[in-house]
């Protein structure tokens, strides 16, 4: 039988668990108890109620839009692809669209947005060339997509500015065109939600202010030949930060 002293000792352990000071083994032991003992679960829940308000002291930090895109993909959700924007700049699709309206300045503006986002002092500072951007403009002058390249993490986020209509069975495919080289496929991109693309080393080394991004109309699975087969519907130059 548990004595009152045991009970106090257990309660202290649950408090330590919630505070986060226990090592991995001791944490696992408490998690096991929560599963089998309603008293343990209730005591842990009480400590969570006690201590969780401390997180009010931590500032909110908007996560990059590709985090939601990854969650969406991992869970294979049907809809909605992009949650409606609320407060945060990063998540604000309207902002991205607005940025896309003025094609000549938008790419530079994206980079400014990235650099003016609040960053915690604890994040290691990255080189100022860590980002590049491009506005991919349709022939009629309307921005189709905005691409932001995060060089440090070797990824590109392509955000649609104006959802384009496609015939059934057709999809937009993104190409990188380094100067004097053939187009390199970056894959089929979404027309109604952000697409995150991992940049392989051979792609990273070809990103430059002389390179172009272009979108062509291809079969839904992408070009069968490895080169564009349909009309180029939008393109844009890459600019550095």
């Amino acid at each position, binding site marked *: 039988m548990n004595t009152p002293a045991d009970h106090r000792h257990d*309660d*202290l352990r649950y*408090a*330590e668990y919630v*505070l*986060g*000071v*226990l*090592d*991995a083994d001791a*944490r696992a032991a408490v998690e096991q108890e929560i599963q089998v003992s309603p008293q343990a679960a*209730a005591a842990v*829940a009480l400590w*969570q*109620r*006690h*201590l*969780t*308000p*401390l*997180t*009010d*002291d*931590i*500032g*909110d*930090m*908007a*996560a*990059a839009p590709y*985090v*939601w895109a*990854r*969650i969406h993909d*991992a*869970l294979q*959700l*049907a*809809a*909605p692809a992009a*949650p*409606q*924007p*609320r*407060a*945060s700049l990063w*998540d604000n699709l309207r902002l991205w669209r607005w940025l896309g309206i003025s094609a000549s300045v938008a790419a530079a503006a994206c980079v400014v947005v990235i650099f003016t986002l609040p960053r*915690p002092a*604890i*994040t*290691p500072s990255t080189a100022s060339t860590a980002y590049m951007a491009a506005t991919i403009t349709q022939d009629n002058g309307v921005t189709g997509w905005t691409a932001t390249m995060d060089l440090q*993490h070797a990824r590109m986020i392509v955000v649609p500015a104006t959802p384009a209509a496609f015939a059934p069975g057709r999809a937009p495919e993104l190409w990188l065109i380094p100067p004097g080289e053939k187009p390199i496929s970056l894959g089929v991109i979404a027309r109604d939600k952000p697409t995150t693309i991992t940049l392989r080393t051979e792609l990273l080394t070809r990103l430059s202010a002389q390179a172009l991004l272009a979108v062509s109309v291809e079969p839904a699975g992408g070009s069968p030949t490895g080169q564009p087969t349909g009309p180029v519907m939008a393109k844009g130059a890459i600019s550095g930060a």
Partner: protein
Amino acid sequence: MSFSNPAEREELTNLLIRTGRSDQQAFAELYQRTSSKLFGVCLRMLRERSEAEEVLQETYITVWRRAASFDAGKASAITWLVTLARNKAIDRLRQHREEQLDDPLRLEETADMRPTPAADAETSQEHQRLQRCLDQLEPPQRAAVREAFFTGATYNELAGRCKVPLGTMKSWIRRSLLQLRNCLEQ
């Protein structure tokens, strides 16, 4: 953000309950409303943006799968969500970085981090009560409790950062927790 407004709390509770019924729209809105807070917590603990993003992703994937087990009678939605994120962040810290983060400078940073008066007005009653109880602790103990909560550090790491023996750190934290419990459950 503290989600201290009762109407807002109720909305979050509803969104989480609907998420538990596989309502994707509710899940998307829940993410939209809460991910900045959870990301702030993850980033504070992990200090690395890409790691915090991975933990945030894992957290919401788990939210989707486990939301049906949320019991509004036992915890508020935001407490449930923050707890899930903190647990995932702590698991991550234990896997990869146990004993790695000895940095004595960090303690002062945390100790100094208090909400501004403007933010104070918006914080929840629970937060104000907790703050009053924390204020009754001796400054080094209070700093150690906050450091532990915000960084998920083990006793060993805390002792290293505060440059005190392990036994001292354990007794600081344990005494503080007992004192907090007495104060909060008055």
